[in-house]
């Protein structure tokens, strides 16, 4: 079958981004032709301001050079403006007569500067601020002329004015509104910003209406006249009073336009399903976005439909604004003005030059505006996008992320809010030794936009992930307005699918999917058999949703779970026999000693989970060691799995003079109940016999502390990457109740947790109140959860014995060739 033809009109960020997303999904589907009115490849329009300010060069902001188009087999027509779309003949014609036929058409013509309809608007020296040509005109004019007038004190106008001042011009900003950037700032923040810009030499005429542009003696523009009759000199007039979607071409083709080309949630024009529109020219639910982040979201969705996958929907974006004027920090997002039904938290330090306003509605952050100190902008923006209930966070909200997290615990985004102030030499990722400078350089040189891209290119945040928050902040401060915080709750499982963990779990449950190929088919996986990220997740979801029905797939497990031992850096393994509740016997110790000698185990170590680790074992020796340990009555400790690890205990009332409860006894019972339990991530328990808590129950997934009247149960603690103190769940009267409640909590986590999500992250996602409602208050549900857990674990064999005696044993023995 011949390839379909895709034509893109508009060689800018939104259109080309759509092509990039499309090429990732379906590289062979289309013959692609691109028309661009400008004589360049795709460049980063947002960075024109730094170019104007002399901080960057044109070549620094090119995103796709001409080679990129050639490498991807794209026919590129630069410097050709499409003048006609023939929807019946399905072809487009450019101003030089070039024609191209299409099966699908993508319009990404962007926007035009709004040119005030005043006399003199067509004089030489009157320009908009939109593209490389405008920027070059400004740079050239600044070299020989003195007076510049910028009309419009929005983001673009102020950035233009700042650049022209740095280029040595005398700049007056004229604005119709009463304060500058009124669409992004409230009056207080705007006044502070204005004062600071005035300090740089910028002059302002606010509440001034321009009525005429007057020619000078050389025929170029020479002065600006206002409504009050006053005139000021102007050798250059930059119109930055807003943008208008460039819809002329679309309108001429009969496509319905209303403040933009009207598109549906699939980015298809509502008039013609063969035609798509993205970016500043498109109007989605009445909004035409002028910032880059929403365009990228649109690009993703549009590409998905062009690739005929057809499952993504664009539902609008919340936007944030950051002014790119070096040395001045302004940030705003959402509904920052507030109004009926909202409350505001304010911090205003006029002398210190700091102003922050947070707007809250129904216990959710709905808007923020900040001046002077914006390091927490991306954090506030994330809270805003996720629409999380603030709860107790509210009291600390104003003081920023690092303060709030030091008081409330961090929920996995352990990033101090200090990215902007860090020196380039500061180490960001401790696992892989990556410095801030390396990350910033990669972001700029490789054109990275997302955390995942930074992970791939620099390895920062790709191991333990605890610096993800910091890396995201570096991204945000490096990219400015182009940064789009990823909403982790909606993030796809991996590159093989657009579905997130929640959707996958739901589909497996609702459609009763029982195998990985079934899931991949039902959810239209993009790869034939997944990857090392999604396969283990799917395998877990199947087994935890359909116990005794879904089949385990060893090849979809990480090596540790496949080999039932922990792989070490030299390719050897470690063996940890289970010691129930941390208890052992002389006979077991003797057997371990024998095994260690027999197989020449180089290192024997006591683990943190109260058992013994035999390190440096060859894979082929594993089944033999297991047989010997099995013979002495020992089984796998599952020290290698996303599963129950240990139940740590103190000696408790059995021996301890302070003990109030028999902690060893309960620990052993809990560990036996949970034997071989698989889970989204590892699970550790502890039982202490009294509040002295020698078993360190406060940092376990489930921690039980004996008190005189019974037990206190704590959940979702973590002793790992980011130490997290467990939350008090409830009291229990006796051992049986502890077992039922712990079991129910873990079953809830097993059924709802996302793969590789520890209990601390799960509970922070769903909320402790939710967990309490399901596990503590609803007795029937608690019982049902506990029963489902017991059913799932029924008859779970010791994996060591199973392999040592079964057909998989041969996988452990390498092939040798006869000499």
């Amino acid at each position, binding site marked *: 079958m011949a390839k379909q033809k895709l034509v893109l009109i508009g060689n800018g960020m939104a259109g080309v981004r759509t092509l990039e997303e499309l090429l990732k999904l379906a590289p062979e589907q289309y013959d692609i032709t691109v028309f661009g009115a400008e004589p360049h490849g795709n460049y980063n329009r947002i960075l024109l301001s730094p170019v104007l300010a002399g901080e960057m060069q044109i070549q620094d902001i090119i995103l796709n050079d001409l080679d990129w188009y050639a490498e991807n087999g794209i026919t590129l027509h630069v410097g050709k403006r499409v003048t006609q779309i023939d929807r019946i003949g399905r072809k487009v014609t450019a101003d030089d007569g070039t024609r191209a036929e299409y099966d699908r058409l993508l319009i990404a013509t962007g926007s035009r500067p709004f040119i005030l309809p005043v006399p003199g608007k067509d004089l030489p020296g009157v320009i908009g601020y939109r593209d490389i040509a405008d920027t070059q005109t400004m740079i050239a004019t600044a070299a020989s002329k003195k007076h510049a007038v910028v009309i419009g004190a929005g983001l673009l106008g102020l950035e233009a004015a700042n650049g022209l001042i740095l280029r040595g011009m005398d700049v007056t900003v004229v604005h119709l509104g009463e304060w500058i950037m009124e669409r992004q700032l409230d009056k207080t923040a705007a006044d502070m910003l204005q004062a600071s810009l005035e300090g740089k030499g910028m002059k302002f005429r606010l509440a001034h209406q321009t009525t005429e542009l007057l020619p000078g003696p050389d025929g170029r523009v020479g002065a600006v006249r206002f409504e009050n009759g006053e005139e000021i000199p102007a050798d250059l007039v930059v119109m930055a009073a807003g943008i208008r979607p460039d819809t002329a071409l679309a309108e001429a083709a009969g496509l319905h336009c209303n403040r933009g080309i009207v598109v549906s949630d699939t980015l298809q024009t509502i008039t013609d399903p063969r035609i798509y529109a993205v970016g500043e020219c498109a109007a989605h639910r009445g909004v035409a976005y002028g910032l880059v982040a929403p365009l990228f979201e649109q690009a993703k969705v549009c590409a998905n439909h062009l690739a005929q996958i057809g499952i993504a929907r664009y539902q609008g974006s919340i936007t944030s604004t950051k002014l790119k004027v070096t040395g001045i920090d302004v940030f705003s997002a959402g509904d920052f003005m507030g109004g009926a039904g909202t409350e505001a938290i304010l911090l205003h330090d006029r002398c210190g030059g700091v102003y922050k306003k947070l707007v809250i509605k129904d216990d959710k952050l709905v808007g923020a505006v900040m001046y002077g100190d914006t390091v927490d902008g991306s954090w506030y923006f994330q809270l805003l996008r996720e629409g999380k209930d603030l709860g107790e966070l509210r009291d600390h909200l104003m003081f920023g992320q690092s303060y709030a997290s030091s008081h409330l615990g961090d929920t996995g985004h352990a990033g101090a809010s200090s990215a902007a102030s860090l020196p380039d030499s500061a180490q960001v990722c401790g696992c892989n030794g990556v410095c801030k400078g390396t990350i910033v350089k990669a972001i700029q040189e490789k054109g990275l936009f997302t955390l995942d891209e930074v992970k*791939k*290119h620099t390895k920062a945040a*790709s*191991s333990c992930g605890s610096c993800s928050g910091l890396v995201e902040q570096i991204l945000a401060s490096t990219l400015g307005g182009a940064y789009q915080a990823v909403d982790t709750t909606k993030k796809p499982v991996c590159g093989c699918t657009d579905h997130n963990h929640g959707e996958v779990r739901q589909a497996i449950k609702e459609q009763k999917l029982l195998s990985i190929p079934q899931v991949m088919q039902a959810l239209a996986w993009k*790869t*034939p*058999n*997944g*990857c*090392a990220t999604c*396969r*283990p997740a799917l395998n877990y979801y199947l087994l935890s949703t359909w116990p005794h029905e879904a089949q385990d797939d*060893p*090849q*979809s*497990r*990480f*090596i540790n779970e*496949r*080999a039932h031992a922990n*792989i070490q*850096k*030299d*390719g050897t393994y470690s063996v940890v026999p289970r010691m129930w509740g941390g208890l052992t016997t002389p006979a077991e110790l003797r057997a371990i000693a024998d095994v260690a000698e027999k197989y020449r185990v180089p290192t024997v170590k006591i683990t943190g989970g109260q058992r013994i680790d035999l390190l440096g074992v060859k894979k082929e020796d594993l089944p033999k060691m297991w047989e010997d340990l099995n013979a002495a009555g020992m089984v796998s400790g599952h020290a290698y799995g996303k599963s129950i690890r240990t139940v740590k205990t103190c000696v408790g009332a059995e021996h301890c003079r302070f003990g109030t409860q028999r902690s060893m006894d309960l620990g052993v019972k809990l560990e036996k109940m949970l034997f071989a339990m698989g889970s989204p991530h590892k699970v550790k328990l502890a039982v202490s016999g009294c509040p002295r808590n020698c078993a360190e129950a406060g940092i376990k997934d489930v921690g039980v502390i004996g008190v005189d009247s019974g037990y206190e149960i704590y959940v979702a603690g973590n002793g790992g990457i980011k130490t997290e103190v467990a939350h008090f769940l409830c009291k229990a009267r006796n051992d049986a109740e502890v077992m039922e409640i712990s079991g129910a909590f873990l079953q809830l986590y097993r059924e709802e947790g996302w793969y590789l999500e520890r209990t601390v992250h799960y509970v922070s996602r769903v909320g402790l109140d939710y967990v309490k409602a399901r596990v503590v208050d609803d007795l029937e549900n608690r019982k049902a959860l506990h029963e489902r857990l017991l059913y799932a674990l029924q008859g779970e064999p010791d994996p060591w014995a199973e392999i040592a005696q079964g057909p998989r044993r*041969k*996988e452990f023995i*390498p*092939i*040798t*060739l006869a000499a």
Partner: protein
Amino acid sequence: MSQWKAICRLDDIPRLGAQVLTHPEGDIALFRTADDRVFALRDKCPHKGGPLSQGIVHGEQVTCPLHGWNLALETGEACAPDVGCAKKFPARVEGGVVLLEL
């Protein structure tokens, strides 16, 4: 002189899995794809020497178990943005028997 040698039966390698062949110059990993093609690479990741045979096989790639590098089974080349290569050995399957050119 290199020559083709019979190594094992195809069934000795799990589908979407691997098996190790010991070799005096270093272990060789034999991979089997979902559609029963077999590839052979030196069992040593170019990154930090991890045993590739222990990784997860997907499509025509294997993910190293130590630090998650992806390598193309066909060429042994690391997938972008990582750079490196594991030595490749020609392999084929004939009548259910895996042959390797050594």
